[in-house]
């Protein structure tokens, strides 16, 4: 196996990982601050992708589409938070699961009604088309590098927001004692709406960026949502740092496993069987990693709440 292929796959894994981080960061933030498990986060991802594809098709500009995806996902998040999610904070997790499951059905079917059941396609903007030569003789698409860049920038921005700003201070305070910061005069209701909209915007951004790599279709969000769950279980619920480490781990493990396992098995049992078995095991790999981590650290790698 050539080094060039390995480097390329490693970058693909990294790109997948940062995209997953954008999803997982929102989920873990929402859980950490409001104690809410939000299954409908995948729908916000889908809304971002559809908004980007719709606006890009209408205006011809990917960049306007990207802005639209942020705005649409944040707006959808804020509206849902104010009308429905707000009633769920005091409820048990079962009610939260059911209500947000209902939201998935409503969002998915509503989107299918609006846009039809056929997938939409989104073109990569001209500025980011083509590939660059990396050291080691690897040619790699600029667009995927740009996603990695945006993801890392978003992670850094999130870190600055939470560690260095007044809003971030309130978010951290909300995580440790929500009654107390309410008593200190912080409007906790609008803080919750802001946090939810922020998480939604991150999911929408991820959806829009991935939309140009894959097709944009109803139901695209849930497989990513479940991976994001695996990530925050691995990283520790409520921890942004855990989400970042978990996302990179899952992205790289999944991508490399799909390349390396069949190759490894070919050497052991011959190519005929290896393709099938290798693919089957590779598809289970991240869940096996999750199980192993949980066996040793049930609270995840960076548990935020003891």
């Amino acid at each position, binding site marked *: 196996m050539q080094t060039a292929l390995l480097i390329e796959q490693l970058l693909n894994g990294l790109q997948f990982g940062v995209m997953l981080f954008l999803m997982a960061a929102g989920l873990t933030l929402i859980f950490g601050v409001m104690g809410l498990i939000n299954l409908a986060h995948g729908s916000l991802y889908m809304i971002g992708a559809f908004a980007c594809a719709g606006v890009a098709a209408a205006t011809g500009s990917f960049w306007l589409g990207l802005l639209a995806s942020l705005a649409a996902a944040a707006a959808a998040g804020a509206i849902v938070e104010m009308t429905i999610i707000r009633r769920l904070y005091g409820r048990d997790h*079962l009610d939260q*699961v059911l*209500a947000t499951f209902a939201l998935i059905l409503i969002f998915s079917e509503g989107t299918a009604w609006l846009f039809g059941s056929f997938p939409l396609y989104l073109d990569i903007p001209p500025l980011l088309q083509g590939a660059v030569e990396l050291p080691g003789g690897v040619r790699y698409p600029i667009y995927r590098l740009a996603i990695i860049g945006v993801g890392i920038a978003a992670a850094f921005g999130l870190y600055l927001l939470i560690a260095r700003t007044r809003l971030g201070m309130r978010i951290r305070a909300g995580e440790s004692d929500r009654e107390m910061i309410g008593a200190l005069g912080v409007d906790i209701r609008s803080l919750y709406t802001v946090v939810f909209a922020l998480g939604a915007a991150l999911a929408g951004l991820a959806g829009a960026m991935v939309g140009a790599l894959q097709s944009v279709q109803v139901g695209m969000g*849930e497989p990513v949502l479940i991976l994001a769950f695996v990530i*925050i*279980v691995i990283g520790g619920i409520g921890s942004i740092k855990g989400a970042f480490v978990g996302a990179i781990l899952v992205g790289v493990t999944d991508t490399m496993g799909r390349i390396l396992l069949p190759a490894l098995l070919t050497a052991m049992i011959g190519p005929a069987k290896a393709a099938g078995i290798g693919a089957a095991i590779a598809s289970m790999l991240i*869940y096996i990693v999750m199980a192993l981590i*949980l066996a040793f650290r*049930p609270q995840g790698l960076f548990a935020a709440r003891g």
Partner: protein
Amino acid sequence: MSRETLLNAGLALLLLVLPLAATALGEPFYVSLATRMAILALAGVGLNLALGFGGLISFGHAAFFGIGGYAAGILAGHALNAEPLLSWPFEFSGSDQMHVVWLVAALASALAALLIGAISLRTSGVYFIMITLAFAQMFYYFAISWPAYGGEDGLSIAIRNGFPGLNTALPMDFFLICYVLLMLALVLSWRIRDSRFGAALQAARQNDVRVAALGIEPFRTRLAAFILSGMITGVAGALYADLNRFVSPSMISWQMSGELIVLIILGGAGRLFGPVVGAMLFVLLEFLLGGLTERWQLFLGVILLGVVLFARGGVIGLLVGRARHG
């Protein structure tokens, strides 16, 4: 007799009368609708054991449903082609008999539930929900990428598996099998609820520290309940595959797990007949709304949201009041 017992008896009778009347009126389609209700109710009875009584919110019960389905499909396939499935420790070349299929489905589901439960029951709350969901997804991707048994396309069952003394190809005979199994599972579920084991399980849901202080290990009680729950759902999966004469990865999808939870909640979680009402209502909604619009799940979502926000306790809760023990 309490109101709930009366309601339960009425429901059991209704589910039996429905297909009988349909047969008398020469509408065999409704028999298969009632069979679907009975099978989903059985799967729900399984989940209710973990979710309703034990408070274990498993978002991964589709794994067991699918394992049961694949057990039916794989055994029938091997029996048809007379290919050996096992050569060691004993010769086994599949089976086209339902009781063998159920046994295999139950054992395979028990094994899967043991593995999933042993890991996920070490955690609780949101972790448990996410981990069970993730493990079910693992089985889903495995079924998709494992080429031997159909992969993404699924597996057809050429002839519905048989049962000694009955002709399972007749809709009514097959319905009766499903109905009897459902009733047996309900009796089992009722006996468990009122047993010492059931008391420990329900107590662990309410306060596991106290249960531990009494000398009962919540982990083992929960694991046993989770395995039993998976087994019942697995048998339901085998019946479901036989009903459709087809099994595919969609039986293991997260939507299936969600639907199983939804039908329990529609009926009333932790109520003996909650899954039965829920399954009847769910299949009826799917049939009525599905006849009106392709996008019937949009309405299901709205109804579900309404039930969660305003009618906690489900249909049974609305009809006979909330359970005495919360």
